[in-house]
C-alpha cells in the first residue's frame, strides 16, 4: 500500500493505482474526458490535472497517468487547478461547441464564454476511439497520423481498413460528436451509436461504408 495525502486527507491506496483512481475511490471529483475505465490511461485532454508537490516545486500533472507515490501531496481543486481546468474547457468549447459532453463540462464548471475564434470541429483527438478499437475491439483499424495542427485520426493512408468490423465502438465512445449523432434534428442523425437510425442512413446502399471513410472524424463525419 502507498501512503499519500489527497486534499489534506491522509490515505493509503494500492500500489500501481493512479492518482485519478485514488481520488475517485475516495470521492473527490475530477473531471475527465479522454479517460475510460476499460481503456489504458492516455493523458491527452489534460482535464484531469491535479496539483502535486509543495512550494515552488508544485506542479500540475494529469492524474489519470500519474502513479501514486509514497508521501505524494495531491490537491484536486486548488486555485491553480481550477484556473487551468477552466481554460482547458474554454479551449474545448472553442473547438467543439456542439459536443454535449463539452457543453455539460462547461456548464458544470461555470464556463460561460469562450474568447477564441470559434471553430466547429468534430474531433478533439482524445484518442478514446483509437484505444477502444485496439484494446477492446482488438482491431487497431484506426490511429493517429501527423503531428501538431496536422494531427488527425484515421485509417492508414485513408484507405478503408481491412481489420475494421464496423462495430461502431469508436462512435459509441466519442465524446465530441454525440450531439451530432443525435443532432437537434433526429432525421439527420447518421449513426447507430445513438440508436437513432434514420432514413438517410438506411437508404445508403452499403451501410458499412459510411463508417470507415473517417475523414475528418472517425465517428460520424461522412463526406
Amino acid at each position, binding site marked *: 500500500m502507498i501512503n499519500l495525502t489527497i486534499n489534506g486527507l491522509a490515505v493509503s491506496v494500492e500500489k500501481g493505482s493512479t492518482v485519478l483512481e485514488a481520488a475517485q475511490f475516495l470521492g473527490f471529483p475530477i473531471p475527465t474526458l479522454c479517460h475510460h475505465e476499460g481503456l489504458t490511461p492516455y493523458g491527452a485532454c489534460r482535464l484531469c490535472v491535479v496539483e502535486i508537490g509543495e512550494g515552488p516545486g508544485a506542479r500540475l500533472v494529469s492524474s489519470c497517468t500519474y502513479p501514486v507515490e509514497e508521501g505524494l501531496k495531491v490537491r484536486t481543486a486548488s486555485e491553480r487547478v481550477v484556473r487551468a481546468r477552466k481554460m482547458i474547457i474554454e479551449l474545448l468549447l472553442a473547438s467543439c461547441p456542439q459536443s454535449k459532453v463539452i457543453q455539460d463540462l462547461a456548464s458544470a464548471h461555470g464556463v460561460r464564454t469562450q474568447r477564441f475564434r470559434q471553430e466547429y470541429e468534430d474531433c478533439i483527438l482524445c484518442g478514446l476511439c483509437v484505444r477502444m478499437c485496439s484494446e477492446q475491439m482488438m482491431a487497431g483499424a484506426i490511429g*493517429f497520423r501527423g503531428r501538431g495542427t496536422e494531427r488527425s485520426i484515421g485509417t492508414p493512408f485513408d484507405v478503408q481498413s481491412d481489420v475494421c468490423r464496423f462495430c461502431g465502438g469508436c462512435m459509441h465512445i466519442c465524446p465530441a460528436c454525440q450531439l451530432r449523432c443525435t443532432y437537434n434534428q433526429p432525421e439527420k442523425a447518421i449513426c447507430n451509436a445513438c440508436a437513432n437510425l434514420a432514413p438517410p442512413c438506411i437508404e445508403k446502399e452499403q451501410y458499412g461504408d459510411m463508417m470507415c471513410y473517417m475523414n475528418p472524424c472517425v465517428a460520424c463525419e461522412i463526406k
Partner: protein
Amino acid sequence: MKTFQTVSEFNAYRTAIMDSTKDKKPCIVICGGTGGQASGSNDLIRIIKRRILEQNLHDKLSLRVTGCLGFCEMDPFIIVEPGYNLYPKLKMEDVPRIIDAAVKGEVVEELLYREPGSTVKRFSQQEIPFFQGQTRIVLGQNQNLDPIRIYDYLRMGGYAALEQALGKPDHEWIVHEILRAGLRGRGGAGFLTGKKWELARNAGGSGRKYIICNADEGDPGAYMDRSMLEGNPHAIIEGMIIAALAIKATHGIIYVRTEYPLAIKHATIAMRQARSLGLLGRNILGQGIDFDIEIFQGAGAFVCGEETALIKSIEGKMGEPRQRPPYPIAKGLFGHPTCINNVETLANVPYIVNHGAEAYAGIGVENNTGTKIFSLVGKIKNTGLVEVPLGTPISKVVHEIGGGPVGNAKIKAIQTGGPSGGCIPASMFDLPIDYNSLAKAGSIMGSGGMIVMDMNTCMVDVAKYFMSFLKEESCGKCFTCRKGTQRMYELLEDITLGRGTPEHLTLLEELAQTVKDTTMCGLGQSSPNPVLSTLRYFREEYERHINDKRCDAFVCKQLTGAPCQAACPVDTEPWRYVALVEKGDYEGAYRVIRSANPFPAVSARVCDRKCESRCSLGAGGGEAVAIRALKRFVTDRVEPSVYRPEPAEDKGRKVAVIGAGPAGITAAHQLSLLGYRITVFEAEKIPGGMLTCSLPAYRLPRDIVEKEIEGLMNKNISIEYGRALGKDVTIQSLLSQGFEAVFLAMGAHESLRLGLENEDVEGIFPSIEFLKDFNMRGKELARGHVGVIGGGNSAVDAARIALRQKEVTGVTLFYRRTRDEMPAHEEEIEAALEEGVRIETLVSPIKVHAGEGRLAGIECVKNRLGGIDASGRPTPVPIPGSEFTVNLDTLVVAIGERPGSGPLASMGLEVDKGGRVKADRNTLETSTKGVFAGGDLVTGPNTVIDAVASGKKAAHIIGRFLSGQPLVEPARPKLPGVYIEPAVFEESGEAPPRAVPASLPVSERVMNFREVESALTEEQARTESRRCLRCDLEFTMQQPAEKTAGAAIGGVRHD
C-alpha cells in the same frame, strides 16, 4: 587494420602513432563540414588537391579536411599551420597564392583576417577576438583531425580515456569521476550526468541496458550537435563506450536525424574503424565486455528530441512523449533501462577522464562546470559556434566573441534555448550563462541556440515565428499543447495584423500560463516561453502594436505599410511624391508634401530623413532613395501657392500658443485652418525658434525660413513678439483672458553645464547663447583658438560658425567617445573636417584654467572605450595620468540642451529633472486642464520634423478638446491608399547609384554663409525617383480578395 586483443597492445599502437607523426610540414586546414560545404569549401578543396598533385607538393604540404571549425561567418576559410594564419571568405582564385606562400612558409598578408571595418591584420588564429574569447576544450579538437581518419584522433590522444577506463576492473569510478566533475546534461535541462549514470548503473539486473546518444537536434539555428558528430565522431563514440562501461550498458544507439547525412556518414565510418581496432563490438580489447553502437535515423520531428518520444520513435511507434515516471532509466527502450545523453555531454566525457574531474570542475562556475557550445546566429557579426565556460556573461559572447551588431541597429535581445526558450533583453546582458541564471530570467539553456536580435527585430513577430514552429512540431497529444500553441499563434497573428486589442494580451497570458502548467512533456511546458518571456521584457512592444498600431521594428507589414511613410513623424507619403516626380508632376508632388508638412522647404534641408533610414532599398543592402534631395528638388521648383489651404470661418474661440518655433507655428497654422483664433507669444523678436537661432544659415538660409513661415500666416493668426511666458504672461493670465486652450512649445533653449569650476569666467559660452547671439543678432563672440565641447549637431554647428567668425584663428572640437559614436550627422562632421575644424576624440575636460577672470585653457583627460552601456554605446573610461592642457581663448560648451522650464513649475505644471514638461504621450495634456505641451519642451532636444509632428498633433487634439470630442481616436495603421501607375522604363544594365546633389567646394564656402548644398537637376531627380521600389503597390494594387481568417478573439457566448 589489426584488431587488438589486449589493452597493452592497443596502448603500444596508440603511443606509437602519437610519437611517430610529429609532422613538421605546413598543413592547410579547411572545413569540410556541412556549413563549409554550403559556403563552397568543396571547390577550394578541389583546387588545393589539384595543385598539390600538379606541383608535386606531397612532401612540402599537407591538407586536412576537417569538420566544422566554428567560424562559419568567414566560410569558406583556410587555416595554414603551423602559423595558424587564417584566410577568411576565400575565392577560388586566391587559393593558389596561399598554397605557394604556405609551401615557402610565407603569409599572404592582404588575404589575412581582419575585423570588419578594421585595418589591423590578424596573423594568427589565436589573435582573432572570436577565438581568443573562447575555451574550446571540445570544439577545438575538430581543427586537429579529419573525422574519417581514426589515426588523426589517435594521434591527438584519442581513446586514451577509454584505455584508462578499461584498465581498471571495476568501472564504478567513472561514475564518481563524472559526478565530481559536475558535468550537467548539455541537452537543455541540465540534470547531473553522474547522477543519471549512477541511477542507470543501479537500474535493472543483468539484462539489456541501453545508452542512447541523442543527436536529434531540431532547434532552428542550432547546429552544434551536428558539427560535433560530423567533426569529431570518435569523441562521441569514445564517450559512449565509457558511458557504457560506467552504467554496464550492453547496447548503444545514436539517434540522429536523417537530414544530417554527413554526420551519419562520419559516425558510421568512425564506428567501423573503432570496431576493426577492437574498440567496439564483442569482447572489447579482450576485456570480455560486449558493447556495440548502431545508428537510428529519426525522421526529423522536433518532439523526438524529448527522451520518451525518442524511445517511442526507436520502438517504431509514433513519436509521442509519455508521462514520467517511470523514467527511461527504470523502464526505457523496449522496457529495458535506458540512459539518454546528449551529443555534447558524451563529447565531454573523454576530456574529463583524461584530465581528471578537478581540472574539469575548474572550468566554469560552481554547479555549472565545464564549457558549453552555443550556436551564435542572427544579427551578429561573427555567426558561428562558440564554446565558452559556463558562467560567462552574455555580453562577452555577444560583444567580444560575436563582434557586436551586424549593422547600425542596436542589439535588443538574445533568444536562447531554441523555440521553447525565451528572450533576454540587452539590459540584462551581464547575466552569466548558466542553467540557473537563464531559468531565473525566464529562458532556458536548451541545447545552446543563441539568436541575436537587434532593433529591426519585432518581438511579437519573433514570438509568432516560434509559435508557428511549435504548433507544427507539437506532437499533438496533449490538447493544451496542440490547441494552445495554435491559439497563441492566432492571437499573435492578430496582433501583428493590427487586429489586436487589450483583451488579446490578457487572453494570451492566461493561455500561456495554462499551457505551461498543464502539458506533459518538456516541449509543451516550455512552449509558451517565447510568449511569456517577450511579454515579460517587451510588453511595451506588444502594447505599441495593439494601442498605437505601430511596429517599431518595421517588420509587421500590415502595421507598417510603406516603410518611408511609416517612418515619417508627420505622415508624409514619400513613395507618392517620388512616384509623382517620376511622372513629372512636380506640383502634384508638392501638394503631397505640403499637405502633410507645413515646412516643406525647411524639411528639405534639415530633416533627419527617417524615411531614408527605413527605405527598403537601403535595408536590402543598397543605398536608400535620396528622398530628401527629391523633396528639395520639388520645393525649389514649385511655388508654395499651389497648396494654400484657406482657413475655416472664424469660430470666435481663442487659443494661445507659446513659442514661434516649428512646433508652435505648425500648431497655430493647423488650428487656424480649423477656424480658431490663435495668438502666438514669442520671446524673441523674430519667429522660427531653433530654425533661426540655432541652425546655421549655410544649412538653412534665413529667407527660406521667413518665406515658409510667412506662407503659413493668415487672418486667424497673430504673433506677439518679445513676450515671454513667466515674464510677460502666465498660463493663468492667458486662461483668464479668454484663451480656451494653451499650447506650450518653447523648445529647449538652456545649455547644459559642464559642472566645472571657473565655468562662468569670460570667454566661455553655452552653445545656445553663442549661436543665438550670432544667428539672431550678428554678434561674433569667438576669438583666437576656439574649443568646442560636445559631439552633437549643435557642437558641430557651433564649431563651423566659429570658424567663420573674423577673429578666430582655429577651432578644435573635443568629444569624449570616438567619431563613430558622435551623434552629429555624418555629413556635417565630414563638412566640418573639410572646412578645417579639428576633432579630438576620446577626450573629456576636467578643469577650466582661468587667468585674470578670463579663460586661459582647459585641462583634459584621455579616455578609452569601456563596456557597452545601456544606450548601446561604449562608456568612456578616463585613463589616469593622461591629463593634458590645451590653451584656449574661447570655449563653447555644447554638451546638450534642456528646456528652460523654470517658470512653468511655478505655474503649477509638472516638470521632470531634465526640465522636461510632463505631458501625456497620447494627448499631450499637461497636469493643468486645457494646457497642452509639445516639441522639445516635452522631449528634450529633438529634431525639427519631430517638433512639426508634435505641433500637428497638438492642433488635432486641441481641436477635439475644444469641440468636446474624446481627445484620442483609436489608432489605425497608416497604409498607402492611392494607386499610382508604376513607371515603365528600359532597365539599362547596371542600376544607377543614389543621386548626390552638388555642393559648394570648400574654398567657396568656408568664410561665408552661402547654402552649401544645392538641389538635384531635373534629370538627376527623374533618375533617382525611378530607383524607388514602390513598396506602396503591395497595398494599393488591385489584388484578388484574399481569404483571411476572422479575428482570433471574439468567440461566442454560451449562456
